[in-house]
Every structure is written in C-alpha cells, then in structure tokens.
C-alpha cells in the first residue's frame, strides 16, 4: 500500500525530562500513535486525541496539540475538505465518522433563555420543598370517566393503557451491544435501573446477564431484527421500533463482522464474524398503515402490556410524520435531531441531513396539540442534550423526556474523539476488543452515570424552583417561560417563543 500523504491532525509531544519510560502510554494507545525504541516515539498521524495516554501517564509528560502545520488559508477549501478528498482519493471509500454532527450550525438551545420569578411571584427553594420530577411515558386517555358503586364509592371507569414511570425525565440513548461494549451496556442498564430511568438496548438485543435490569430497558426492534425474540420483547418495559437515527436519517446500519465476537453473536443471534446489516427501511413498512401493523404485531406479542415507541430522525416534514406515527398507534414518539450521535455514519450524511431537534420538537408538539392528539403519545427528544439547561429547554418546548447518549458516554470516560467506528476505543466503550473492554469498570461507570443523572436532576429542581413551580408538569410545553436571544422572527415563531424583552 502506498504511504498516505495526509498530514497528521494532532501532534503528540512527550516531555523527555519528565518521561520515565514506563511505557504505560504505549500500552494504552490502541491506535498505534505511540511506539517505543529506547524512548517513547510518537507517530502523530495515528493520533486521534482520545487522551488515554495523557490520562495514564503518571508523570504528566504527554501533551496533545492540534497540528500547527499551516495550510494556505482558504475560507471555502477548508482543511477538512482538503483532507477528506485526499483520503477518498487514496481509498475510494465513503468517509466514516462517529458521534454527532460537529459542524458549527446554529445551536438553538444557546439562543433560548429561561425565565425566573422576582418580587411578585415567589420562587421556591427545592432544598426545603418537594419537587416532583416523576414522569409517566405512554398514551394518556382523552378523558377520565368514573363510576360509583352502590355504596357511593367512586372508581375509575376509563381503561388506562400502560405507562412507564421515570423518576426523572431522562432516558439513555439507544446504543447497541456491538457498537458499545458489554461493560458499557451493563453500566447503562444498571445505572438506569438504580436511578429509576430507562436505558435503550439499541438494535443489538439484550445480553442475558442484563435481563435482571430489563424492567428498566427499552427494547429496540429495528430493520435487521437482531436479537429480537419473544423473551427479549417481554424483558423490556417499552418496545421501540427504530425507523431512523438523527445522525444518519434514511440509511441503514452496518456492524462489521470483526465486531461480532462470541458474546455479541449470542445476543444478536447471528454467527460469529458475520456482517450485521440493518437495511435502511423496514421492508414491511411502506406506509402509516404498515407501521400500524408492526406496532400492533408487537402489542399483540406482548399482550398490550407495554407502550410502543417509534423512533424517527428529525427531517423536514417531521410534524406530519409524527402525527402519522401517533395515529398509527404509537404510545411514544422519539425524535432524534441531526446533532444526534452514532457509532458510525458516513460523515457526509451526519453533517448534512436532517434538522435540529429544537425545531423538530417545537413543530411536533405544536402539530399534535393542534390536532388534539398530544395526549395520545409522549414525546421524547434526542440529539445533543448537553446539559440540564438543554434539558429544561426541551421540556419547555414540549418534550416529555429527553435522551442522553453522548453525555452518558462522556460520563463513562469518552473524550468525543469521534472514532467509535474504528472499534479501537481506548476507554473500553466503543470496542469489542477484550483487552480494551476490560478498561471500563462497569461498577465505576455505573456510579458515574448515576452521578450525572443525580447532578442534572438537582439542577433541574433548582430551575423549577426559580421558575416558581414544583412539578415538571408545570414546565412541560410551557414556552412562555422561554425567551429567544439572537433569533430571527421566523425562528422564534417556529420555536413558539417570544424575543427577550417582549
């Protein structure tokens, strides 16, 4: 193979004074960016800036810099474009990437601000007073009817459909076992179980060891139907039909055979080493009626005991699509915006297809309200919820709950190097290499995830307090408590918020 002429993106600097040649950095690097002769020798072009060596070095002797190599500046022909073309000219392949869209599109969360109580409407101190964060996911009835027995005792006449309790309105993103390691899956499942939220299996099934956390899992059914069987469907508390993913709307998935080891093979129920292809469409879904057929096939299979969610990417006509999904009988609509993460997607698709979750969420909530069917399904918003600030804003725009994927990975140690598709994750998350997966201690990762949920929930309570409300229900869909800064009239209009000062 001809040696690549693409210049490195990063520069690894090892401080010779500090380095004691313990080789921990060399052992920790799975990308081949550090070698050893009589000293540590970096190979810059392989460095992905994952920081594992930096974290492992006992002497703090390693520094990763962005490559100072100058390119003649060009506003149109950016370095990224030039490097991409060089790589494609060398390989003839589609450029791959991991994590969410990294392009500097306008992030609407950062243009929304939250109201607070002053003087006339007192705020509440959440440290003293109870704050209700509990949320129920699932279809709510149009109205409640009661009947009284002959002793005058009232009882509920309306038949309720199953709803799932979240202690705090957050769920972990769908990340399959296969795209991430069993230790990572285990930590997500256990943290969800212990925090009273939900994890999402993704489309790779649920490992039998994790069945004990199943009541806190959303079990996904995607076009490849990997690991989907009766027992699996019965393990979860919610079943999710995956139609689309924000990072790659309209395309399928492909877990290469190299990642199908014995455990992944058992869970997905496909042979070791075989490619796991998830076709772009479900081949039995070509219409809302077909979607309804699958929704009810799943409800029949689980005796109407579990809410069914349909997950779609945020695309242009998302409001109409969501309306169709609700009318098809879904109890939950999960919308994944175009900054949503992925283990692997063609860069060109991740960075150019779909719309932001803020716009999609506002449009869907609006449409379902106008059509009088908002109660029929919960809305879960996904696609780069980075902090409890984004979370609060999503709830105010109408979400019943939000999804966190990248944030959960970062909590487990991820440095967002965007190389998940390589299967070499030095943090033991997005890999199946046993030497690497052993680096992620599931107990520690569970605690870190629980800490994140706890910390954000505390912040959420503080914000509810300053808004002068004591329950999440008083914030949900309450766009009056948001104001826009630096948005155009039409942007603010779509989001349904006034400008600051109005």
């Amino acid at each position, binding site marked *: 193979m001809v040696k690549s002429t693409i210049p490195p993106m990063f520069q690894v600097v090892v401080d010779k004074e500090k380095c004691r040649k313990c080789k921990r950095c060399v052992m920790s690097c799975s990308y081949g960016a550090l070698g050893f002769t009589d000293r540590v020798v970096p190979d810059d072009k392989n460095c992905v800036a994952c920081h594992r060596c930096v974290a492992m070095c006992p002497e703090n002797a390693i520094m990763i810099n962005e490559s100072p190599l100058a390119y003649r500046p060009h506003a149109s022909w950016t370095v990224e474009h030039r490097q991409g073309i060089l790589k494609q000219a060398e390989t003839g392949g589609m450029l791959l990437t991991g994590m969410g869209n990294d392009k500097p599109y306008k992030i609407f969360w950062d243009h929304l601000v939250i109201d607070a109580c002053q003087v006339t409407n007192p705020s509440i101190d959440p440290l003293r007073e109870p704050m209700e964060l509990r949320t129920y996911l699932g279809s709510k009835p149009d109205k409640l009817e009661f009947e009284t027995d002959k002793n005058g005792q009232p009882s509920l006449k309306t038949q309720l459909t199953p709803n799932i309790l979240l202690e705090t309105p957050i769920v972990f993103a769908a990340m399959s076992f296969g795209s991430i390691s069993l230790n990572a899956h285990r930590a997500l499942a256990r943290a969800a179980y212990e925090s009273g939220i939900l994890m999402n299996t993704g489309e790779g099934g649920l490992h039998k060891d994790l069945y004990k956390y199943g009541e806190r899992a959303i079990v996904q059914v995607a076009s490849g*139907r990997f690991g989907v*069987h009766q027992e699996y469907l019965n393990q979860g508390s919610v079943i999710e039909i995956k139609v689309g993913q924000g990072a790659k709307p309209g395309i399928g998935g492909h877990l290469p055979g190299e990642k199908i080891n014995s455990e992944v093979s058992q869970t997905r129920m496909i*042979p070791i080493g075989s490619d796991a292809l998830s076709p772009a469409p479900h081949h039995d879904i070509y219409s809302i009626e077909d979607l309804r057929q699958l929704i009810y096939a799943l409800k029949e299979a689980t*005796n109407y005991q579990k809410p069914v969610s349909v997950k779609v990417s945020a695309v242009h006509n998302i409001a109409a699509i969501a309306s169709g999904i609700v009318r098809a009988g879904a109890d939950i609509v999960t919308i994944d915006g175009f900054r949503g993460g992925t283990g692997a997607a063609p860069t060109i698709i991740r960075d150019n297809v779909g719309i932001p979750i803020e716009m999609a969420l506002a449009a869907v909530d609006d449409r379902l309200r106008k059509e009088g069917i908002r109660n029929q399904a919960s809305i879960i918003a996904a696609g780069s919820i980075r902090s409890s600030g984004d979370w609060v804003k999503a709830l105010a725009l109408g979400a019943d709950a939000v999804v966190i994927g990248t944030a959960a990975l970062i909590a487990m140690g991820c440095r967002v190097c965007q190389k998940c598709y390589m299967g070499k994750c030095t943090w033991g998350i997005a890999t199946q290499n046993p030497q690497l997966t052993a680096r992620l201690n599931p107990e520690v990762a569970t605690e870190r995830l629980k800490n994140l949920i706890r910390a954000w929930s505390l912040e959420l309570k503080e914000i509810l307090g300053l808004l002068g409300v004591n329950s999440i229900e008083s914030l949900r869909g309450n766009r009056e408590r948001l104001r826009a800064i630096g948005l155009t009239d039409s942007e603010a209009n779509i989001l349904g918020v006034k400008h600051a000062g109005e």
Partner: protein
Amino acid sequence: MPASKTKKTGKTITIDAKGVYYRELNHSIRTALKAGGKEFHLKNINGQRYIGDGLVGRDVRITIDGVPGNDLGAFMDGPTIVVNSNAQDGISNTMNDGKIIIHGDAGDVLGYGMRGGKLFVRGDVGYRVGIHMKEFKAKIPVIIAGGVAGDFLGEYMAGGILILLGEKKKNEMMVGDYLGTGMHGGVIYLKYSDDIKEDRLGKEVAVMELDDADNKVLDKLLKEYCQDFRMDYDKTRQQRFVKLKPVSHRPYGKLYAY
C-alpha cells in the same frame, strides 16, 4: 363486536371467529392457552391479523379454516399453524421457532427476519419472500413454496434455506427480478428453469450446481414438505435443482475509508 364463541370438544378448542375482531380472537386464544389448551381449531377466519403472534410452545397446534390476515405467526416461538386455504402478507415475521403450513397461496414479505422454524406454502408466494432471514447455530429457518415467487426473493438473506419448487402456469415466470439482492448468507434452492436469468440476479449471488450436502438437505426437507401436502415425493425430488449462494460473505466490506 360479537365475542368469539369458544367450544371445547375432547382436547380441541374450537373458536368460531365469524365477525370477531382480531384483538378479541387472539385474546381468546391466549386465554385458552394459559388455561392449558394446546389444540385449536379456528373456524370462519376472515382476515383477522396476528394469529399466533408471539405464542410459545412446541406442543401448540392451530388449524385455521378461512383466510388469516397479515402477520400470521409473527414473533412465534414453537407452535404449528395449519391454514387450509390462502394466507396473506407478513407470515412468520421474525419467527423464532415453529411451523406454518399454508395449503394455498401466500402474500408478500414472508419470513422477514425469520430465525428458526419452517414455513411451507403449497402454492405461489408474493414479493420479498425470505427477506433478511438469518440463522444462528442450530436454528436454520426454512421456507418452501410450491409455486412461483415475486421480485426480491431472498433479499438481504443472511442465513436459512429457501426452496422454490416452481410449479407454474403457462406464460408465468417462476421468479421475479432482483433475485437474492443483497444476499450475504444462507442458500436458495430453485427448480432449474430458463426463468433464472443472469439479469434477474442480485449482483451478490451466483447460480451453482448442487453437491452431495445440498442433495441431503433437499431429500430431507422435500420429504417433509411432500408428506405435509400429500404430494408425490419422488416426482418432486426428481426435478433438477440449482442453488443460489452469495459469492461473498462481505458484500459491504469495501465501502468505507477508515
């Protein structure tokens, strides 16, 4: 909505499904199953969906008079279903185990993601049959159809066995276009026919002659099939078959720049 009339004679539970909504019907079946019922006879079935959906147990047997609706035996794990007439779309969707015998024709998207068990159709089958069938260890799903098949037969197939006996009327084509498109595992046995043309095949597959192992598989499966439909095994088996297999297990291996 009339409730289904359930009657028990000996071991067999007979349900008259005339005018009964599918949800009611399937609820009756599940309830009777829970109470220990194993043998079911469903009468006057007319398009009710999801019969057998998610049912578990190898000793469960359901006989159906009339045409059942879509997703017959979806997610099913063990039972046997015999349909004494035609059937519709989505049969054996993501089925894990069991057997479905259709005495007439069947529709589109049969055996989607099917992982185990058998689907025997006496007559013709529609589009996208055997799509994304897969196999795992001892679980090797089998679909056999006696007649002709529509486009996209065995699309995305990742495992399992698909057999087309190809009985056809004059001027009928035995197979449609895009045969085995995207196939990366499993095998399709086809009655040899001029209809299997190069331009109908997916680019991932090739037509090959049978070897001894293939013949053994065909012997066994066709014997069972002929027994189920009371057909002449020798005559059926005598025909020339060819097989369709993927030329590469990694058709999607060289798409990306890493």
